[in-house]
């Protein structure tokens, strides 16, 4: 019975993706993208990866959708005429050929599972019970450090290009009571997600994305407008996360002799400390990526 659900979900994903890419109206295609993102998050749950489903829903569908919507309203629709029929037919046949070859290649790959044994063996002394958090923040924490550098590089790039700051128009008087309920719940849930990341699905990225969502609601409601003070605070918070992570890495090498090898016994303290710093800095980075970093901040 569950296979019928999977087939239906897979067809739904491909169908909404096709419509999202095919529509002329930009807002509709961005909405199609968000819906596909949420369906893909559901498929990750079916594939037994709840952490990734949380991240895909919060970041992949939520924040990327907000970014796309902001730009869809401001970009001029290109007067792109339909490309010639022959080119479209050629592109379609090559694309279907490649994707079928890809599906066949992955389908026939032997797929020997090597990592689960290693992860479960190292899980005991990794300080956390959730294997994904153990991999992200202990076994392969070097990847996570470089990933935060990617967000830092994106931030510096957006600061150089300095696109115009989005101006939220007044949303009426209902926003204030709505924010009064949503913002505290959002902060509470983000902290809960961060803390439970050690044992059950959750963690720094999902919590950071939820906090960034809260900041965006404040921004829409007109409370967190990018004034110079807010931007300075946001930039300091964003840079502090990466600085703390790099200094913690050097500190672990000073204490234990190998880079990012947490001193025995208090791995959990190190991981929770790094994760909370990351949550705040990821939230600030995603807020700044949404609002752009103006050289001449909005009055």
């Amino acid at each position, binding site marked *: 019975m569950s296979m019928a659900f999977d087939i239906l979900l897979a067809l739904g994903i491909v169908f909404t993706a096709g419509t999202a890419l095919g529509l002329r109206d930009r807002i509709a295609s961005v909405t199609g993208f968000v819906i596909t993102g949420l369906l893909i998050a559901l498929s990750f749950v079916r594939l037994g990866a709840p952490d990734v489903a949380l991240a895909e829903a919060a970041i992949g569908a939520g924040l990327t959708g907000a970014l796309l919507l902001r730009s869809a309203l401001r970009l001029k629709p290109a007067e792109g005429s339909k490309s010639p029929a022959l080119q479209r037919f050629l592109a379609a046949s090559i694309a279907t050929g490649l994707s079928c070859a890809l599906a066949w290649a992955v389908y026939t790959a032997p797929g020997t599972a090597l990592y689960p044994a290693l992860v479960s063996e190292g899980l005991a002394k990794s300080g956390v019970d959730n294997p994904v958090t153990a991999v992200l923040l202990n076994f392969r924490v070097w990847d996570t450090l470089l990933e935060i550098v990617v967000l830092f590089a994106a931030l510096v790039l957006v600061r150089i290009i300095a696109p115009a700051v989005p101006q939220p128009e007044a*949303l*009426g008087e*209902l*926003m204030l009571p*709505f924010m009064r*309920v*949503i913002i505290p*719940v959002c902060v509470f849930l983000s902290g809960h997600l961060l803390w439970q990341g050690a044992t059950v699905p959750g963690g720094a990225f999902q919590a950071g994305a939820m906090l960034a969502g809260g900041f965006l609601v404040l921004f829409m409601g007109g409370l967190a407008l990018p004034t110079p003070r807010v931007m300075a605070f946001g930039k300091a918070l964003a840079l502090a996360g990466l600085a703390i992570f790099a200094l913690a890495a050097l500190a672990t090498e000073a204490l234990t002799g190998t880079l990012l090898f947490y001193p025995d016994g208090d791995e959990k303290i190190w991981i929770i400390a790094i994760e909370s710093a990351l949550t705040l800095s990821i939230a600030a980075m995603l807020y700044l990526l949404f609002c752009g970093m103006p050289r001449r901040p909005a009055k």
Partner: protein
Amino acid sequence: MSAVLYVIGLGLMTCGVVLLLIAALGVWSLPSAVSRLHALTKADSAGLSLIALGAACVNGRLDALLALVLCAVLVALSGATMGHLIARSHVSEDEPE
């Protein structure tokens, strides 16, 4: 006891799904934007709360119940507010200047 709870849960969830179907039909067929919003907000608040309550009954554990109730309340709240905001932007557009 848990069998009765299970049946009630299933019943609630089917009602919720039926309500969602009707709302989807409404969104598809109703002409103007505001009337479509009417259908949408019903789906959000009523349909989803029924499904959440049904799932809570089927599941039976207390912490799952709390999480599902919180989820239903949040979706209902944001659904109503978004419906209001979209209606506000449509009304200001359609008003003859």
